[in-house]
């Protein structure tokens, strides 16, 4: 399917749901992490790997691996928004998504109708990426850098 993701729920069996929930916790830092997980869940190691591959192939999961806070090694994340004329929406989405610095991009229902996250290895990369998007689209990019993060556990129970 196209890179545009599911817009609705897909059918998952109870084992898929248990696996997804287990994989939102701590993944074992061992030489046999799926076997460790299998013991905890009462599944086979190979079944876990196959299910995980299927969930990634069908885009139920968008990623599996370490999640980085690039700020901790000198990089930056920044939320950004644009007000995109409806008739130009797809063209502008293409131009914005073409930048490797754009990590996520969502259409939202508001006058500011395109919201994306820039992720760069150096802090000055944020302004450069926003400038490149303004240049490519002729539209203003509003930057919303985080000033403070209030800690939450990110878990969505499947």
């Amino acid at each position, binding site marked *: 399917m196209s890179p545009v993701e599911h817009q609705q729920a897909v059918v998952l069996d109870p084992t898929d749901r248990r696996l997804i929930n287990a994989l939102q916790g701590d993944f074992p*830092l061992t030489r046999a992490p799926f076997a460790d997980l299998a013991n905890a869940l009462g599944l086979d190691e190979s079944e876990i790997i196959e299910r995980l591959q299927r969930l990634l192939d069908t885009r139920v999961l968008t990623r599996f691996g370490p999640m980085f806070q690039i700020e901790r090694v000198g990089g930056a994340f920044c939320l950004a928004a644009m007000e995109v004329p409806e008739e130009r929406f797809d063209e502008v989405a293409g131009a914005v998504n073409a930048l490797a610095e754009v990590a996520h991009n969502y259409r939202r229902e508001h006058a500011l109708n395109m919201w994306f996250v820039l992720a760069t290895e150096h802090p000055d990369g944020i302004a450069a990426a926003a400038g490149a998007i303004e240049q490519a689209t002729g539209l203003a990019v509003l930057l919303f850098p985080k000033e403070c993060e209030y800690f939450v556990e990110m878990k969505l129970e499947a």
Partner: protein
Amino acid sequence: MSIEASEAGLQSAADTPDPLARRIIVATQSGLPLVADPWGALAHELGVPGETVLATVADMLARGVIRRIGAVPNHYAIGFTANGMSVWDIDDDAVDAVGRFLAGMKSVTHCYRRPRRLPQWPYNLFAMVHGRSRTEVDDEIAALAQVIETRFPAACRSRDVLYSSRILKKTGLRIAP
């Protein structure tokens, strides 16, 4: 770890990035290999011993360079079809207290203070609320607003919620090799 020690660690991390840590980021930013020994496979790819990779990843977790290791669900696919970005214009004196309160609520998955962009954007507090329907999310945000009004009277001047209607891209971080 004390706050000073962790800030010092952060400073040195920013000043002298560990070359192996950077190579691990580049090699795994699109995902871990789905094999029985993914850390061993990564070590093989990087040409270093498996134990070195495990120790470096453990250190990156301890320093917060890695937030966590695991799966990122497409929230639509797992049934959270209503994804509301609730935004709040909160008095500057109260915004941190309100932010901490919102972050503690079960329905809130991310909560940040960000600058206002006047006149277009008066909101300085962002809280993501995921639910299985817009009605559920609207009701939850209304309930949160009520508690905020009780606990922090008149601190909230206005609020809005922006629903996502399409994921246009969701790849995550990509730094150049």
